[in-house]
């Protein structure tokens, strides 16, 4: 009996033991390897930015800013090493899906950072919506990304085009301007900025009397400057960027309009061109989410660290790259580097309070920064901060259903 019992006990014991082992094989053995993977495998970060062409300098500033944020945490994300994959998007919208797929399908990256050009952003959105890859956009302000196309894995650390001009309505009202004309390139970003301004200005009782468009990327403004002189508005609001902005500012002065009809703009009008335009931009007021002379502890520390590391002065693009890095750090530290836990990463990023050089910001439901818009004035070679034009401005995210 005892023997039998023992035997049966043994048999049961053996069965129990073997099922335990089987269970261990099923769960235990797999779990440790998965865990070991988590400890050793690097997090793959894909940087899809322009490294050639008109926006090459912007791509470099974003990359520098991003890496600075990661390096400040010891070069790791949630304790895991990082492997970078680089793709030059050439600011070419036609190649955007192909370039995005290089990162998503060939390199199998965990997160994509990119890009500058709004048209390329739209191409990336198509691919990344399908793949579900985590995406942080450090510049391109196309409204659709955090509007009709918004998705749980889409994040932006920069601005929406609408945000950059919306606060100007209040500014113009405060200066006593009752009507204005808006002049920009006829393309998506220009039209979105026009809408942002129009909405803000009309809410304040102002009237946008004329919408003037120059074909993109033309820089012959003489006809429309003459038109402005004949309209005689209280104020002119403009959006151009880069070489076009430099030429517009100089032509506005040469046409004798400067000092007669005050000029305002989205911050990009006077960013990165002040060396080129001499005194043509002096006194021009713009709104943007970053400015010179903020003089906060965080901004000073950032500017010093950036200048030390790269021997360059940071700009708004560097800040946006830096904040893309900070946002990713916040997401991955919350899950201790377990990038497989995408829901956890997204939740942590949504809840993050980013301590940015531009001031603290959080994310809207559509994952666009809710941030202070500064009023800046060109003084010498700086876009000097004049104050906050709009505290915690959120993009309306029209059409976002996610």
């Amino acid at each position, binding site marked *: 009996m005892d023997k039998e019992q023992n035997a049966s006990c043994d048999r049961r014991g053996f069965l129990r033991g073997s099922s335990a082992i089987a269970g261990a094989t099923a769960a235990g053995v797999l779990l440790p390897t998965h865990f070991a993977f988590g400890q050793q495998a690097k997090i793959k970060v894909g940087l899809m930015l322009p490294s050639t*062409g*008109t926006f090459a300098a912007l791509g470099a500033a974003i990359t520098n800013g991003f890496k600075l944020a990661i390096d400040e945490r010891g070069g790791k994300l949630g304790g895991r090493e990082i492997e970078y994959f680089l793709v030059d998007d050439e600011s070419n919208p036609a190649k955007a899906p192909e370039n995005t797929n290089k990162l998503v399908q060939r390199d199998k990256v965990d997160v994509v950072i990119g890009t500058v050009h709004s048209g390329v952003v739209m191409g990336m959105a198509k691919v990344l919506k399908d793949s579900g890859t985590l995406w942080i956009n450090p510049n391109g302000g196309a409204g659709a990304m955090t509007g009709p196309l918004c998705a749980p894995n889409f994040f932006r650390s920069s601005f929406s085009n609408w945000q950059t001009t919306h606060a100007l309505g209040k500014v113009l009202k405060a200066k006593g301007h009752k009507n204005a004309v808006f002049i920009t390139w*006829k393309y998506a970003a220009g039209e979105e900025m026009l809408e942002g301004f129009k909405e803000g200005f009309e809410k304040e009782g102002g009237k946008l009397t004329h919408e003037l*468009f120059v074909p993109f990327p033309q820089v*012959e403004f003489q006809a429309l400057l*003459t038109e402005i*002189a004949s309209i005689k508005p209280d104020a002119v609001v403009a959006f151009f960027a880069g070489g076009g902005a430099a030429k517009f500012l*100089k032509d506005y002065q040469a046409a*004798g309009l400067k000092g007669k009809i005050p000029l305002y703009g989205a911050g990009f009008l006077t960013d990165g061109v002040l060396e080129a335009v*001499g005194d043509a931009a002096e006194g021009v007021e713009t709104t943007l989410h970053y400015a010179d002379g903020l003089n906060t502890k965080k901004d000073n520390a950032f500017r010093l660290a950036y200048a030390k590391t790269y021997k360059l002065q940071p700009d708004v693009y560097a800040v946006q790259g830096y904040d893309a890095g900070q946002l990713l750090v916040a997401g991955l530290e919350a899950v201790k580097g377990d990038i497989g836990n995408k829901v956890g990463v997204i939740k942590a990023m949504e809840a993050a309070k980013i301590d940015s050089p531009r001031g603290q910001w959080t994310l809207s439901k559509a994952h666009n920064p809710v941030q202070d818009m500064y009023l800046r004035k060109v003084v010498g070679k700086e876009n000097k901060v004049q104050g906050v034009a709009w505290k915690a401005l959120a993009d309306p995210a029209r059409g976002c259903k996610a």
Partner: protein
Amino acid sequence: MDLAFFLIQLLNGLQYGLLLFLVASGLTLIFGIMGIINLAHGSFYMVGAYLAWSLSSLTGSLSAAIALAIPLTVVLGMGLERLLFRHLYQRDHLYQVLLTYGLILVFEELRSLIWGDDVHGVAVPELLNYSIPLTENLSYPVYRLAISTVCLLLAFGLYFLIQRTRLGMMIRAGASNREMVQSLGIDIKLIYTLVFALGIALAAFAGMINAPLSSVFPNMGGGVLIICFVVVVIGGIGSVKGALIASLAIGLAETFGQVLVPEISGMIVYVLMAIVLVWRPQGLFGRA
């Protein structure tokens, strides 16, 4: 639009047209007269602008910069003709397209290495740095008027050279039958080298004197390239007069288009080109 503003817009249109002629003049010579497709025309324009910027910041004067830069661009043009273009005259146009497209990429990369990717401004020469008041709030920059004068001089000079001189005759003859000209004892190789270099220098010169107006920035040549081809095509291959009239027509169409029909101003030039090509496929003054 009252009369005063109509006249100012007319001036704007003519002035812009002359500017277009200036920018397209190098292409008129190389593509229009010599029959070589040069997609890198915009790159030479850009090189001119960057030379004007870097040399004028060195010397402190735009005129000195231009005087220094023109010989440089002539040498550049002669070198390129000797090394590259010369071997493609007898080949299909596609080879020229490939070569000059390659040159665009090379020049952009060189520009990035040598001068960087920033936007730069060139100061208007002190002598011309003022504006003439036209209405209570609008004035006209004198530098623009000065450029217009230069453009007119250039147009007449070029016309005279091509249509009225012996050299011009040889150039035109060379374009239509190279072997025949050579067998008549004319050193067509040398003439081609010189005329090609002149075309490059003109493209660069346009970039130089336009630099104070347009600023200097990466890819600036890409924007002018297409409009230059439109000028030459509307004007008619081989005609300096055609290029001038086409430039003025485009300038006026763009200016009044932006003011009167802003919704379609981006396509007006191309509609104009389409109409001309349907009506006269060889261009306004091209040989049938």
